[in-house]
């Protein structure tokens, strides 16, 4: 499904923002909110995994239904999951397209990555001693 | 112990009655003393003009509004950029320079003390943070009360003591220096997009008039024995015909203090317009100065404009919006809850505009028509009329009829008939200029006894030595030398240390902030007044306990305590 990737702040994302290694953070930041009709069209249920692909890359998220999300839109809390597929083009303004990245959403069985794994994919090394 | 000996100085020190004597100045640990040991560092002033450090009694250099002027002006920051060099930090900006830019340029011009013209108490912390980054001048902040709800309530109750109590509490909370009224009542009306048009018009919802606010605040100010008088930006700024409001205002000012004025009227140029529209605007400087010349209780400053691009910024929000509707450039507005307003727009004063030419002429007329230079101080309401770096040009204009004539010849047509400037022969002398740039300010601000504005024994050793030989320069003819001479001191000495030499800053600054702790009787302490506390907690958006500025924001605070009144 072709759609617009929209991102924004949410209370749970904010509450766990200083606990990025936690399961709670992973669960709030990796949720992809879709209009229930779109979920039906994709043949997926609440909690199923989806793969979101953009020119910048791809990411696996957990699909969650949300009535408030428009058709052909996917909403993800700001954070490393959304950013894994957002282009760094800023149109000369310094600001990337955090709210208007075009994306392709499809069902997948691939596993969800942790924040540490995402950072390792960028060349980092996860620190896990706290 | 550090000692400095300035020899061969040609001193003009109006407060001590010294006018061009060649003398030596001894300095120990930041103060002027009788004599120093032979180990003292020596500066040979070579008979150059030596004055007490310059004092700006009305400038906008720090705080929310000034910083917003910078924030919205990247185009101005491209002007005046300098690199880090020695002790000097990077600077940017011409009409709204960075804090270091302001401080270095003032210092290069020999200025050592500044009064920030407008500080909203709620945002006072910001002003004080910028003061610490304006290191080469001692600072003080006029505190805004023009739309203060608690003040207006007390004024409505005709309660001078209560008014004084609110002022005292607020000044202390804001670490402020004196009372500033900007378009009194008008800034509250602007809260709902309205303005007032005269001093006897009621402030909506508060049932007081500007006249009542002004007179009650004057009496409260004197009851509190504040060092400075009420500092007023009159109503109706910048409107053709507004001179009548200004005269009416002057007429209600009593003469209450033998030591200084009872009212400081700021940037009067903007308040001295005749006519009724921009088309027939004219100068009413003669009427204004006629009033001031017979009212020793009033001191004003010029509010001179100079041609070029600059930024207007004032607590007078409605005036800025009106100006914006004329200019269609960018406009910022920032109203402060329960206290005041503010507005900012960039302007260009052009010689092609007859209105601008008349404004330019009025400022000069005010200075030339005021008999006593202590009653008309040299300011541009920086940066509203012009950035302060233009002061030397203004000095040149005041000292030279020839310079004025040359400038007048380049103005738009139709100006001559609407001002008296072209006919004025007066040329101010060095002593007049010394009064209008330091002695007058020190007296008006009430800081002579803090050791400011003079070079007597015990005074703070703030000294400016200009590369000007008054015995050989004829300012009337050689006005360019005057202008150049005042642009860059040979030495600026701040509290006994040479801070700037030939325009270059050579040490880190260590300024002080003066503030007034006005004492009130125990029963008038607002922090114990349940009604005041209740209203505060209800309508402000910060808690009362988080409102006062902590001492940590004034690392070198100088508290001036007043006597408690009865």
């Amino acid at each position: 499904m072709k759609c617009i990737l929209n991102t924004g702040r949410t209370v749970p994302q904010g509450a766990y923002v200083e606990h990025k290694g936690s399961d709670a953070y992973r669960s709030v930041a990796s949720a992809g909110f879709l209009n229930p009709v779109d979920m039906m069209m994709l043949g997926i249920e609440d909690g199923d995994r989806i793969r979101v692909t953009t020119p910048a890359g791809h990411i696996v998220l957990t699909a969650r239904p949300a009535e408030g999300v428009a058709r052909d839109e996917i909403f993800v809390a700001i954070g490393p999951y959304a950013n894994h597929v957002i282009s760094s083009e800023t149109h000369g303004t310094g600001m990337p397209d955090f709210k208007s990245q075009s994306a392709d959403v499809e069902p997948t069985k691939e596993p969800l990555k942790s924040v540490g794994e995402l950072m390792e994919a960028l060349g980092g090394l996860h620190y896990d001693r706290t | 112990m550090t000692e400095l000996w300035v020899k061969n100085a040609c001193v003009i020190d109006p407060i001590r009655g010294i006018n061009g004597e060649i003398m030596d100045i001894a300095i120990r640990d930041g103060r002027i003393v009788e004599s120093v040991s032979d180990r003292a560092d020596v500066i040979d002033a070579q008979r150059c003009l030596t004055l007490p450090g310059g004092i700006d009694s009305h400038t906008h250099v720090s705080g929310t509004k000034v910083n917003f002027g910078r924030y919205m002006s990247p185009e101005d920051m491209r002007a005046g950029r300098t690199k880090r060099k020695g002790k000097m930090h990077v600077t940017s900006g011409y009409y709204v320079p960075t804090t270091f830019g302001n401080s270095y340029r003032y210092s290069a011009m020999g200025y050592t003390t500044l009064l920030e013209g407008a500080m909203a108490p709620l945002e006072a912390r910001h002003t004080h943070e910028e003061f610490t980054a304006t290191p080469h001048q001692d600072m003080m902040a006029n505190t805004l009360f023009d739309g203060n709800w608690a003040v207006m309530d007390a004024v409505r109750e005709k309660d001078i003591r209560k008014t004084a109590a609110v002022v005292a509490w607020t000044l202390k909370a804001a670490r402020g220096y004196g009372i500033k009224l900007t378009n009194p009542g008008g800034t509250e009306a602007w809260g709902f997009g309205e303005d007032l048009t005269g001093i006897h018009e009621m402030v909506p919802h508060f049932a007081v008039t500007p006249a009542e606010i002004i007179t009650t605040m004057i009496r409260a100010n004197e009851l509190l024995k504040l060092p400075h008088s009420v500092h007023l930006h009159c109503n109706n700024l910048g409107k053709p015909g507004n001179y009548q409001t200004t005269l009416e205002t002057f007429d209600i000012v009593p003469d209450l203090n033998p030591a200084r004025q009872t009212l400081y009227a700021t940037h009067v140029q903007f308040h001295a317009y005749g006519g009724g529209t921009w088309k027939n605007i004219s100068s009413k400087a003669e009427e204004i100065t006629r009033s001031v010349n017979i009212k020793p209780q009033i001191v004003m400053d010029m509010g001179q404009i100079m041609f070029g691009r600059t930024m207007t910024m004032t607590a007078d929000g409605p005036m800025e919006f009106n100006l914006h509707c004329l200019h269609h450039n960018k406009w910022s507005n920032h109203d402060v809850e329960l206290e005041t307003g503010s507005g900012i727009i960039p302007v260009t004063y052009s010689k092609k505009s007859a209105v601008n030419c008349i404004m330019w002429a009025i400022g000069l007329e005010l200075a030339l028509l005021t008999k006593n230079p202590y009653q008309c101080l040299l300011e541009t309401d920086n940066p509203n009329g012009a950035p302060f770096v233009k002061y030397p040009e203004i000095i040149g204009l005041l000292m030279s009829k020839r310079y004025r004539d040359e400038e007048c010849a380049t103005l738009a047509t139709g100006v001559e008939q609407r001002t008296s400037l072209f006919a004025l022969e007066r040329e101010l002398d060095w002593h007049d200029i010394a009064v209008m740039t330091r002695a007058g300010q020190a007296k008006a601000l009430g800081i002579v006894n803090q050791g400011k504005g003079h070079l007597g024994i015990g005074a703070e050793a703030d000294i400016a030595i200009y590369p000007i030989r008054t015995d050989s320069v004829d300012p009337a003819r050689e006005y360019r030398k005057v202008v150049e001479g005042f642009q860059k001191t040979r030495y600026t000495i701040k509290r006994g240390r040479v801070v700037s030499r030939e325009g270059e800053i050579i040490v880190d600054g260590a300024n002080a902030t003066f503030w007034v702790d006005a004492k009130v009787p125990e029963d008038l302490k607002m922090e114990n007044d349940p009604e005041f506390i209740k209203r505060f907690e209800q309508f402000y958006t910060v808690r009362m306990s988080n409102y006062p500025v902590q001492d940590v924001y004034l690392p070198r605070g100088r508290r001036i305590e007043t006597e408690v009144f009865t």
Partner: protein
Amino acid sequence: MIEHDVVCPFCGCLCDDLELETEEGKIVKVQNGCALAESTFMNDVRLPAPIRRTETGWEDISYTEAIKETAEILQGADRPLLYGWSSTHVEAQSIGVHIAELIGAVIDNTSTVCHGPSILAIQEVGHPGCTLGQVKNRADVIIYWGCNPVEAHPRHMSRYTTYATGFFVPNAQLERTVIVVDTRRTDTAGIADEFVQIEHGGDYAVLSALRAIVRGKTSVIPAKIAGVSKEQLIRIVEICKTAKFGAIFFGLGLTMSRGKYKNIRNAIELTDELNRHTKFVISPLRGHGNVYGSNEVFTWMTGYPFAVDFARGIAFYNPGETTAVDILRRGECDAALIVASDPGANFPRDAAAHLAKIPTVIIDPHVNATTALSRIHIPCTAAGIDAAGTAYRMDGVPIRLKKVIDRGYMDDAEILKKIYDHLNGGKGP
């Protein structure tokens, strides 16, 4: 022990009415705060000591060693980037600017990926605004455009707008009309008297249409603009023009969607136009607790609110060129110092990935996504929890953050001061 009137440092609301209960140097209870405040104070897990990445893993190092190595990294760089600053106090931010000026770095703060476009718009047309108390005491019309305070600024509506009792608005809920404009039907939209659902990227066109209608050019406007009916827009203009005091708050829905700062410019010009009829103000809902403070400090010290490049000695500013995401995307910088922020999580992937390719140091109380991309992580105090200092609220009101407890960490201002001293041959700023 109960601490009263504590300031929450989390978001730009800087609510200053929290009550904190502490026991033996630990915070045990937070009252009056929202969920974000509670989590900020109660759930504060820190990195215990400085760490350094090795070939195979992570090792603990001393503060002295971490500071010295950081200084060496910065000293050797041809284009260092100093980024973050928005979750710490003004005192640390000031030293950051001095470091940047000393070493010819680019310094940028998090507004670059937040309200940077709002700043660009303000630089074009100015900003008619006010402190939040003006809105609380006066506003009878509130517009939330492209923002979701229920989620991002949970107490904004109860402290300053919809539900706040004001002097001229004693019955807030009855007397205030709330309009919400968004692409999503958010929880904020749920409480609106009027909800305007806009198609993605349609904000600019809708704002233009509103301006034209305010100016009496209604006939030019087509029947539907970006999914919004002309009738609804006419109705909204009527509500605005007859308001006694209107306030527009906007968020990332305007700054981040296509057109970026032009959307905000258009919203400001609408506000300007409405001021010819009544009183109207507009304000960005700023995110990080002290992001506005970083703008203020950068401005008074350098002249520019963010994205300042000192490479040539003077301060140069050009968002799109000197902004952190662009500098990382182009792979320009060869060292980075991150302070009080998490670009690893908040920057697009290629920008974040460059941090792992260069020596990156992060100074932050918490382990975050950027930790993994860094060579060194130096933990420090958290402003407003175990460090005091100034923060600027979203409306420019400066508030002193309190030190509520002591956890034995070094203040980031102190760490930065030591780095500065190293770089400046032992002399302070």
